[in-house]
């Protein structure tokens, strides 16, 4: 039995290429902005990187495109390990709520079976507004700058990722969620820039940048949830 190659996987998921991939990427971006549970947000980011691979193959050699996907998955792994080390943003098991000054349980509203944080509703409103902004930009813009005749789904993915990445950066004071916004924003830009510059050297440099940012963001998350900070 032979292990499937990149081309086998592409053939298998060919039905997702084009608009389905772009819409799915947009959906993962919305999930990342809305999700209050870190595990869901990181999983959505991982799914986003996998779906972006299907868009990258439209502008890059598949062997280079898969590198983008692998780098993205490594970034998600770094973030997941870090999030696990800080107990997914919750209090450590040996710290009592009365002791922790910095982390207070957020107010929640019961909507059906779900206890939704109040900030979740604000995020929903912000995401809806951003969705409208993306819609208007797609409607009015004459394509992406410096790129002639790009497919509409490609533009949708780029604009959507840039917009929702910016939104996540702007509305998230917390380092992990801001970091997810940074990676979304970067993904949108890298997707666009891959259509301009396809060299392996640029791909390697961008991969290095992504991994470095993952390490820095992980460090900031660790310091945010360091026990002295929780108790101070």
């Amino acid at each position, binding site marked *: 039995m032979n292990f499937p190659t990149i081309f086998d996987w592409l053939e298998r998921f060919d039905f997702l290429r084009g608009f389905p991939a772009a819409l799915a990427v947009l959906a993962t971006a919305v999930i990342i902005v809305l999700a209050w549970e870190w595990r869901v947000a990181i999983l959505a980011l991982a799914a986003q990187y996998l779906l972006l691979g299907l868009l990258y193959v439209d502008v890059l050699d598949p062997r280079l495109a898969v590198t983008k996907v692998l780098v993205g998955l490594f970034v998600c792994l770094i973030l997941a390990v870090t999030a696990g080390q800080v107990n997914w943003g919750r209090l450590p098991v040996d710290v009592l709520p009365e002791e922790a000054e910095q982390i207070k349980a957020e107010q929640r509203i019961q909507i059906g079976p779900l206890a939704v944080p109040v900030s979740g509703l604000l995020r929903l409103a912000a995401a809806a507004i951003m969705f409208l902004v993306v819609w208007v930009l797609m409607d009015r813009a004459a394509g992406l700058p410096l790129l002639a005749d790009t497919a509409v789904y490609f533009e949708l993915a780029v604009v959507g990722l840039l917009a929702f990445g910016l939104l996540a950066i702007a509305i998230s*004071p917390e*380092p992990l969620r801001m970091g997810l916004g940074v990676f979304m*924003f970067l993904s949108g830009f890298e997707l666009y820039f891959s259509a301009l510059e396809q060299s392996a050297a640029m791909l390697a440099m961008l991969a290095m940048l992504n991994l470095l*940012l993952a390490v*820095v963001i992980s460090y*900031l998350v660790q310091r*945010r949830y360091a026990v*002295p900070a929780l108790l101070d």
Partner: protein
Amino acid sequence: MSIVLLGPLLAALITGFASRWRRLTAVLGLLAAIVLWLLLRAEPAISQSVVLLSRALVLTPGLRALFLFLYAGLAGLFALAILFPQGGKLIPASLAAYGFLAAALMIRPSLFGVLFLVMALGLLALAVQDDRAGAVQGGVRYLALAVLSLPFLLAATWLADTQATAAGGIVARTVVWGGLILLAAFPFHVWATTVVREASPLVWLLLFGLVQFVVMRFVFGLVADGLDGEMVRLVELASALTLLVALLLLLTAVTLNRVVGGLLLADMTCVVLLLGQSPAVNWETAVIVQMARFFSVGVLAVGLLLWTRFGGGALTLAGEVGEQPRCLGIARRAPLSMLVLLFGCLSLAGLPLTIGFGGRWLAISLLAAKGANMLALLLLATTGAGVLVLLRALPYWFALPDEAQHQPGEGRWLQVLLAGGLLLALWLAWQPQVWLAYAVRLAGLFAG
């Protein structure tokens, strides 16, 4: 040549391992900075290039002179870190960032330089956070805005590298946005005010006094042909709004950090405004402003670190944290620390007879000559507001302290040292040609 790239990274590794012992880390960092400065000075003073990973690295005389200044500044910063121990990340992160900054400036095509620049700024987010548990906002915002600037700078350098003469106007338009972000113009000024609020004064010296040289070099290098009318108006609008924010910060300040935030924003706006000036004068004036800022923030950092050691921080009773008014009468027990702090603040404000006056006056003159009187007035207003807020604090600082409070005072040896340092700073202020000549020569090395 490789020592410029790999030397700082190796030094960062060594100091990173020793980071548990703060003073030792600072000593190792200082030694590394001195050794790197000496090795760089020994490099031949001719343009040379080597190939690394299929990319050319060029060390021009201008870059060499800039690196020598940056390493000298870093050595000074690490020397201060021995006296005022910082967290465990400032020194390793600074050294590692210097390696990436060197790559950013030397690599050709400059497309890759942008990526190295953003990597360096990302590493500096570690220096901003500097192992202080819970205080991450400064690092987070600095990192986010550095990444936000990447698309503009990368697109601009791609255009400059691939389409050269045909794309001059678009390159300038694109790079202005990246420049506004990294030079903390409105609405991207939030990273600067947060860093000032959270980080140590030595981090201010690093980011605003040293690293900004490299950022400036990048941005001004890409707008070498000047900006068109629309972009000049954008720069002026962003600058005006930034100055208004600075004014607001100064007039509502109750803590020293807020005052410094306002003064720094105003000073950085001088550099932003120079983007809209003619290429014949903008780079030279920007270097003068930046160098004046380095000296001003250096003096301010020493003053504030000492000030904090003697319990100070607030401007008035309203700004005090906790029950005990720590700043009440602080000027009586730490007069020379107060003088050093005041001199640094007034220098950053650009007051006459201080180090910062030369650069500020040049910027205002250029604006007035161009007819941008409102901007010149706003700059003057920030100077005035800075002086006003400090004068307002003096009665509180000079008030008679409560006899029951036992707070430390300056030792005699410290007063002698500070007096010597103040005299040196005053001499630099009254003999500006000493450092102005160096600044003009440094700027000139990049011309052409």
